């Protein structure tokens, strides 16, 4: 499917900008998302193509407005819900005393 991730050759994006002295992660939670994804892949909860697919299924406007690791976290929670590991409400923290 031609989805929002499929940007190769598109016109209109700006100049490429480097971040000086860029750290591997800008916040601890980003490293946690990477580790979480690795753990769930390793456990076979989903595979890498399902993970990519879950990122690509994001609504285009949200995809473009999200940071890289926000997309990852969004895909992880999408898959956890679809695989029946937890409900969307549980993942959003809306249970357990509200």
């Amino acid at each position, binding site marked *: 499917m031609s989805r929002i*991730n*499929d*940007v*190769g*050759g*598109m*016109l*209109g*994006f*700006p*100049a*490429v*900008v*480097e*971040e000086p002295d*860029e750290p*591997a*992660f*800008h*916040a*601890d*939670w*980003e*490293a*946690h*998302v*990477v*580790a*979480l994804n*690795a*753990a*769930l*892949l*390793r*456990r076979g*909860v989903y595979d*890498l193509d399902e993970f*990519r697919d879950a*990122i690509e299924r994001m609504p285009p406007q949200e995809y*473009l407005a999200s*940071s*890289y*690791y*926000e997309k990852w*976290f969004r895909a*992880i*929670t999408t898959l*956890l819900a679809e695989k029946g*590991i*937890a409900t969307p409400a*549980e*993942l*959003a*923290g809306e249970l357990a005393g509200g």
Partner: protein
Amino acid sequence: MSATHDDAPVAARVRHVEALLEQRGWLAPGEIDERIDAFAAGGSPAHGAAITARAWVDPGFRARLLADANTAIGELGYSMAGGLQEQQLTVVANSEDEHHVVVCTLCSCYPIALLGPSPGWYRSEAYRSRVVREPRAVLRDFGVELPATTRITVWDASAESRYMVLPRRPDATEGLDETALAGLVTRKGLIGTAVV
């Protein structure tokens, strides 16, 4: 960009999901911290620099690297096996008349096991969209102006291989030893958005 907006809510949600998964047995206690430490201790651009320097001083190694990179980097103690399974590494060598650039237009495939996390610009829509279409303009964003006679080949990591560029050895470096040569090699040089 995460650095420019308040990410406390997402940080809290990540902690919550982690706790939930740990409670339900999908994560072992301490597993996340162990993985973070392992990731930090994994790949590094220094590995690519060492491989490049060896290829510059040892034509036999260079030939083996271009023919079968996974086996060749093993000679220096490196591997592409840091992830779920070993990934195929393809090394493409710059020459006087050809320059290579690596991208993943569909997502952000990168030889993390060998080189560590990719830079943010590599993952940006700007880089991914533009470099396949107008590589000379993107190289100018990086301050690189190649002669019009240099052929450019862009490698889009669209399947299972990961790519590393073997930069050209700079002129007037005959007196440098392998360690000093490795010191000249940058991460951008290994992606193809810089010349060394």
